[in-house]
């Protein structure tokens, strides 16, 4: 299926916070209570629509384990968006956010949109991190924030789509250089300004070909 833009996301955060479950809920609309440890990196993809435009999200789900940290770092490069996830029922996953954020800022491109996600909002009774704390952290570091539940699907769509909206806005503002794939954005084959022959308007341009 054709798309106007492809956005590359990366999901990061401590092991067991629900990164893979968020991805599965978003791409397959299902919840898997027992999920295997992610060892390397896994991929998911889904098409969404923003402003009437088809946007393909290509999501890289990474391993949270400390042992894999150096491998995970090499995936930051070339991501337009990051979902930084913690578990609201485990305080230590919230405490580690600073380290994750430093890592992300250091290894990604500076325009990467980061969405902070407090996952497992369905487990209210076991909550260890208040929603306000999440909001405060996000505010302090200039992140977007949401609490989600990969189990009930609450806010999962929104988390992925709001991140895409933010990226889309940055494109409109000209913040992202969309011709540089290292920014994690790819212009769809039918919309590529550098490929006029494939443009949907190509046939209207006549023999002279288009000029951009």
């Amino acid at each position, binding site marked *: 299926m054709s798309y106007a833009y492809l956005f590359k996301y990366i999901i990061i955060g401590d092991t067991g916070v629900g990164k893979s479950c968020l991805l599965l809920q978003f791409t397959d609309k299902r919840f898997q209570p027992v999920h295997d440890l992610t*060892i390397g990196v*896994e991929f998911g993809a889904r098409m969404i629509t923003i402003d009437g435009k088809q946007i393909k999200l290509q999501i890289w789900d990474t391993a949270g384990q400390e042992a894999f940290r150096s491998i995970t770092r090499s*995936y930051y490069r070339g991501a337009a968006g990051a979902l930084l996830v913690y578990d609201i029922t485990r305080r230590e996953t919230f405490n580690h956010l600073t380290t994750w954020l430093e890592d992300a800022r250091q290894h990604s491109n500076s325009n990467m949109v980061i969405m902070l996600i407090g996952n497992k909002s369905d487990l209210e009774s076991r909550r260890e991190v208040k929603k306000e704390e999440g909001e405060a952290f996000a505010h302090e570091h200039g992140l977007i924030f949401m609490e989600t539940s990969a189990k009930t699907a609450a806010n999962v769509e929104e988390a992925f789509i709001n991140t895409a909206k933010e990226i889309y806005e940055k494109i409109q503002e000209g913040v992202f250089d969309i011709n540089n794939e290292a920014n994690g954005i790819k212009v769809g084959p039918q919309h590529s300004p550098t490929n006029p022959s494939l443009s949907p308007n190509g046939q209207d341009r006549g023999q002279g070909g288009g000029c951009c």
Partner: protein
Amino acid sequence: MFNKVRSALYNVVGGVEALPAVAEGEDQSRLRVPKFPYARPHFLLFQQDEVQVSADHQIRPIIVPRDITKVPWQSGYAETVNAGKSEWNEDQACVQQRLLVRESEKHIPGAGMPYTYFALFDGHAGYGAAVAAANQLHNVVHKKLMEVIDHILPPLELGNTGAHGHIESSTPRGMAMWYPEKPLPADVFISGALELAFNEMDALIGEDKRKYIMKGGCTAVVSLFIAGKVFVANAGDSRAVRCSLSKPYPMSNDFTPSTERRRLQQLAAHKPELLSNNFTHLEYNPRPGRALMGRKILYRDVFMTGWAYKICSPEDLRTPVVTGEGKRSRLLATIGVTRGLGDHELRSIIHNTPIKPFLSSQAEVKLYNIEAHNIHDTDVLVMGTDGLWDVTNNEKTAEIVQNSLTNFPFGDQENSKYRFTSAAQDLVMHSRGKPEGHNWQTSDGAPGTIDDISVFVIPLAAYKREWEAWKQQNEKLRQSKASDQISSKSAQTAQSSTNRYPASANLSNMDGWFPSLDGKTPTTHQNGGTPANVPVEVGVPHLNVSDLPLAEISLEAEEVMAPEDTPSRNVETIDSEEGLTPTIGSSIPENGDKDNTDPSSTNYCER
């Protein structure tokens, strides 16, 4: 005639892919298509989308199987794509678990010997040959093993050997005393099957290249876990190394122009017509240029280990068969690997000389007797394509594996199943390194490889446990069959003397077949045993039975074939030709190159 017209037409039209060699009468209208589509290894369960993402040359993600139950024994696998030298990852991999079972015994629960196959193929000049080998070589190996099943696994009932009920000697009775056949251990038949399979796979690719779009060639390294041992067959510069307690023990040799210099020069010297006078088999130090004409130059011929002088003549200015040193050495100034599958169309960059007879598909087989050794839980067989070994040497590999495994101790019930996957990933990570600007750099600050990397990390202890459990179960099965037999056919004893199997009184005793020779590896080596940590090469020199004194061979063979209490002089060798050919036809599934569905196999190939 029509062919001529058509090729003339194509020449005029131009821009159309070179015509395949089409025989007269063959379907002329057929356009060539790939025999197998490009894919990643079957056990990764990749969708088309993921195939695309995994080929990201900027990020070079390290891919591991998402469902590790798709790889036997929770073995590790990891791969990464090159940094842009080819569009796709040209490495391929395959894993199979199959059952070696006679057609006549298929209905018996528990009959047959399970074996496990791991293979890596490093493609070059296109992915066609590597993909073809990954889809087919295991089927060829299975077919070849089935052809010698009587030498690997005795039938459950002695009166029911093979398809005919018994096996006859190929040697007429009267001739037997002049040309006695010696009983050979199962090992030589397994390595023979592997060697034949490589050869046949290469021929098959050669045929298919004329019918389909199938580009390039590939190296091949296969490990076959069978009969309590692991057999490693290698053709090319991929490598298998056994790692035990942080120490590496090579299980294969690399075949490159520099390691095979002697073979290549000898072939060139003995068959100069292959080079049509464009290359020279001589070696020079340094290679002479025009300026040295008429002056003394250092050289050596194929029969020399030392060096000598000669006067430089125009002939000495030809390109040597092998140029360059080490990793940069080239055969006919073109290719850096000297064994593998495919490349039938490959010609040298200069002079357009066919490379194929120099580039050989011959496999070298080495084995390690897992059953006979003390195996630690952290002992593994690492298989890797040259992308791994270019950066990470054997010693470092053993060290990385040991470190990785300690991250997932066995006590950790939940996560220990990931330990070998993690080790494979760490090995790929070490050779790939991290992106530094436009380059890749390892953690030691050295340049990372820009090549494709693929790695298996296979736990030996898991196979040993599986093998021992099978042996016990099989012994029970034999005991029950033997008691059936004794009660029903008490008059069968006479027949055992015409049988090639160990004439042990106790039919269920498998020791003659799967001997536990503690520390000793049964082969045809003259000294009978090998140092514990040296893999035994079952290559040609040791197998050339006719060159060895017969007495020694038979002694060795007895040790392998029959338990001590067996009157082994009664063991009569029986042929393979006559007795086995019918078995082949009836028991080999017709799965050669068409599909992978073999009812006897637990097929890991589900896509």
